[in-house]
């Protein structure tokens, strides 16, 4: 059988690994590090997810805490690719400040840029996002821009020099899955830079359907961390992302609104 070699391996080989800004990554699944019950659970979940890129946030050190709770005490920066975000920033200048602080930590010049426009929906302020992208690209940052599922904004972000565009599947932390597959597909078809769907994936089937649109990857946090068993969900997400990718590469059968028998219509008894 032609595919015997492929099927015998645990995972089918992806003919085109994820490459962003010239950097090749070993997984199309990127995960956040927030909201876990414990650091041990977070580490186990990240391991189960197989993710290489893990996002982190920049916050003030709590000077009155007896023990430093920085995430670098738990995550080995040699084993993961740390992607700092600017979550919680509501203006371009604030996001730029956070990005600069993150770069000064000394790991890389990459940033998952968020400029939030509304507290209730956490939808992006696309004007601020574009402004911050231009400034940071000018300073040598590799900008991965968290945005909505609007094609025009995505095109402008690419033009501004973003190395990846990250449209949402649905609002951050909502777990609603992909609300507009048409918009996500259109963005993927029109952009040259990688499209990483960020936010809104609630369970494994959501992740699978997102990957079936042909996007380059998914970033998720709450979908794993808020599961009853985050480690098991992380394992499910790993398989879902791989399955969705393989289904996309395999090319699905055409949809038909009539039945087509799978068994021969000839050779029936009495014919």
């Amino acid at each position, binding site marked *: 059988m032609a595919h015997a070699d492929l099927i015998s391996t645990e995972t089918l080989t992806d003919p085109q690994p994820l490459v962003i800004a010239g950097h090749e990554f070993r997984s199309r699944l990127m995960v956040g590090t927030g909201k876990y019950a414990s650091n041990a659970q977070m580490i186990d979940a990240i391991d189960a997810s197989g993710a290489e890129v893990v*996002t982190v946030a920049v916050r*003030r*050190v709590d000077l009155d805490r007896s023990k430093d709770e920085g*995430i670098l005490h738990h995550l080995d920066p040699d084993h993961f690719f740390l992607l700092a*975000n600017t979550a919680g920033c509501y203006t371009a200048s604030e996001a730029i400040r956070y990005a600069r602080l993150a770069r000064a930590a000394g790991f890389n010049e990459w940033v998952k840029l968020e400029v939030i426009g509304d507290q209730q929906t956490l939808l992006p302020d696309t004007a601020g996002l574009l402004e911050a992208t231009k400034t940071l690209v000018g300073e040598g940052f590799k900008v991965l821009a968290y945005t909505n599922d609007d094609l025009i904004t995505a095109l402008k972000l690419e033009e501004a020099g973003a190395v990846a565009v990250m449209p949402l599947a649905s609002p951050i932390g909502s777990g609603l899955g992909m609300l507009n597959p048409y918009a996500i597909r259109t963005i993927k078809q029109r952009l040259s830079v990688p499209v990483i769907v960020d936010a809104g994936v609630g369970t494994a089937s959501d992740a699978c359907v997102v990957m079936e649109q042909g996007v380059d990857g998914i970033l998720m946090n709450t979908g794993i961390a808020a599961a009853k068993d985050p480690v098991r969900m992380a394992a499910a997400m790993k398989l879902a992302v791989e399955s969705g990718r393989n289904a996309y590469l395999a090319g699905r059968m055409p949809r038909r609104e009539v039945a087509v028998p799978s068994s021969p219509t000839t050779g029936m008894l009495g014919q």
Partner: protein
Amino acid sequence: MSESAAAVTEVASGEVVLVVNGIDRRIPAGWTLADYLASLKLDARTVVIERNGDILRDRSSFASLELLPDDVLEIVHFVGGG
């Protein structure tokens, strides 16, 4: 420190008042940034510091950087996030 600020804040001699992460902090006069981090049991390699709006990129300078009255420090690090 300006005279008006000195009038508002009674500072014991031998102490300076800084604003660190938004809160007034008193430290002995003459302390360097490295001294202050050591007092907080912070590893300079795991934090990023902004002083008066400027990011301090050269950690080797911390040992010679004396903290002055009314310095505004932001000490940040990476935490869990999406």
